[in-house]
């Protein structure tokens, strides 16, 4: 597998029983790796929105999208790598403090525009929202003080601009993304002859 990277997909699904199982079972059975998954309702009744981060090369992600498109409950799939998007993640971080470190920890949190959501005798709990880089940086800054617990929500994303991701008529049986040729056809003489004569 070459060129493995994370792909951010938004999957709009009918809000029906077992739809989450259907999606995750498909990923599991086909061996696609889910790195993060978050699900919530949308402004349209009956439509839920999942943001899935799947890691793999381009071929794996295209195959995952095409398999997902076959599911009856899937209304639409947006591959955010094809356009501009905003994405966020919320994380709660519980950091150990001592009387000596308290001020420094608070100062770092302030630099990250993080909010304190709980104060304990020996720990502070922070809420951080942001993209993956910011959250990773925050955690790295806090690590020396002693991180007791973290909980991340998983990434969520929307396309930039005024267009809504959900088409007006959400149950419209849309066309799949047009298939583009993925390989250039080499001139015949350049195609290697590598059939050994074993017959």
């Amino acid at each position, binding site marked *: 597998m070459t060129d493995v990277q994370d792909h951010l997909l938004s999957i709009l699904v009918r809000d029906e029983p077992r739809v989450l199982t259907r999606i995750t*079972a498909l990923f599991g059975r086909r061996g696609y790796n889910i790195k993060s998954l978050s699900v919530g309702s949308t402004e349209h009744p009956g439509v839920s929105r999942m943001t899935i981060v799947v890691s793999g090369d381009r071929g794996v992600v295209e195959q995952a999208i095409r398999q997902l498109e076959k599911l009856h409950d899937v209304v639409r799939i947006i591959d955010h790598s094809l356009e501009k998007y905003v994405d966020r993640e919320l994380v709660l971080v519980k950091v150990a403090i001592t009387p000596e470190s308290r001020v420094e920890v608070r100062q770092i949190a302030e630099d990250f525009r993080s909010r304190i959501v709980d104060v304990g005798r020996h720990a502070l709990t922070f809420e951080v929202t942001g993209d993956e880089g910011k959250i990773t940086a925050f955690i790295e800054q806090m690590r020396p003080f002693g991180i007791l617990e973290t909980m991340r929500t998983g990434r969520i994303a929307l396309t930039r601009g005024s267009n809504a991701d959900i088409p007006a008529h959400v149950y419209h049986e849309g066309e799949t993304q047009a298939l583009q040729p993925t390989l250039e056809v080499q001139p015949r003489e350049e195609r290697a002859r590598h059939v050994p004569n074993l017959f």
Partner: protein
Amino acid sequence: MADNGKQHAPHRGDMTGAKALWATLANHGISTVFGYPGGAIMPVYDALTFYPEVRHVLTRHEQGAAHAAEGWAKATGEIGVCMATSGPGATNLVTGLADAMLDSVPLLAITGNVASHLMGTDAFQEADITGITLPITKHNYVVRDVEDLPRIVAEAIRIARSGRPGPVLVDIPKDIQLAAFHGEIPSPHARPEAPAPSPESIERALDLLRSAKKPVIMAGGGSLDASAEITALAHAWDIPVITTLMGLGAFPSSDPLWLGMPGMHGSVAANRAISEADVLLGIGLRFDDRVTGRVSGFAPNAAIIHVELDAAEIGKIIRTHVPVRGDARQAALLLAEGAQPSPRPEWTAQIQEWKGRTVTPETYGAGYAVKAVVDRLRPDDILSSDVGQHQMLAAQLARFEKPRRWINSGGLGTMGFGLPAAIGAGMAEPRVRSVVIAGDGGFQMTAQELATLKMYDVRNVKICIINNSFLGMVRQWQELFHEKRYSEVWLGDSNPDFIKLADAYDVPGYRATTAEELPAAIDAWLSDPKSALLEVVVPHEHGVFPMVPAGAALYEMIETEPVKSPDLSAQMQDAAEEASEA
């Protein structure tokens, strides 16, 4: 689906969910349902008595019902319907659903379930059948409100038949079957038009075909309804055609351009043509590993054009140079219209030389017996097979002039498929012979369906058992890849007397044990006015060749059978005697 304009009276007495189910099925032209009753689907079976226009066929096992529905669907191209109760009834359908999924068979499965308030409590005969069948159905439903029931059934039928067909399951809790229904019974959805291939993709494919010096067409199960168009296409361009196991019949076997079947037990001509081709046009297929052999060695010199309705199959296994997404019929038609015939005498001569290497079984054995049977079939006869050596031999040796005359379990390789599928096909087309070739192993997995033949007095099902006393295909692999350690594949000392077994169900039996006896036995068997069984006792050791070993490339095929081992039956009987003495 026959739309005879007949609409049902909305009420036959009080309309329950169960009656609404039958009314919906009848409105959709469903004439036959294969099934088996039980506690959680009794209201449906009770309501059946009010709907004499739908025939229910009682099989002897739910797996038999599912395969019979598949046989019906494969023979007609229309949807097959099977039915079972909750729990064990539903789980017995599972193998048939998985089989239908892999072979793209339109199938509707109706299951009863425990009452809604008991679901999730591990109630008697409760199984989470929608959870169980989630990966092996195109879609499935639990009906939670009786008013949704007919709409869901209609939608399930539409999903099963549209696009790439497949199985859909509808699970109906018992209280929903009994609840009063007040809505309308829906009429069939119009079958959606298959998407037409884009003009750009057709143009790219035509460009490639024009430049081809050694082109070959490979037609799969998705091309069965495009048979006429593919035949025209092949002739317009003068391109040889390979039909996969699932595509046998999509191109007439008598045509000089036909090369046979590709893959593990494919013909020399088909596998060599794939290995040498510079352009391979695949139509309605999914490049199964039994077809490709080692993927890196598949069509190594060819640019691949892949015509396929299911976008997820394009590029899944084989890198595709020109994807053509859409209906096989329309694509073949457009590609034929753009034909620019250019003679390729060298390629044609080469193909003919390879075709000359067809292996004909000369000595009495499984291949000899299969050939003797298939040579007597009429073009209209439906030939089904079970799974194993006899299946591959039948696929190699039978000749099909039209589609939907060959029924077998391709993708899942389900032993026990043959007999019930042949019964389903025979009931769908009572005017033609429905012949099934089975092995002694697979036949015993669903042999109880002989009772279905007896019960419905089916007269056109002809069963041939090729009895080599072994699980022959496993034995062949043990011979080739496990140093002849024949572990648990000897059936000889425990097989029943198949003639007596048939007799117990009033099915006439015939037997041949030598080449001399065979012709007369086949004639008597085929001309019997009833459904009949023929047992052909053959030597144990024969294998199926040519063969491409698993993991090898097509060009590494073994063309003929290696030198045989000493007499196996003696070895096996000795071993059995030793075991019983010990």
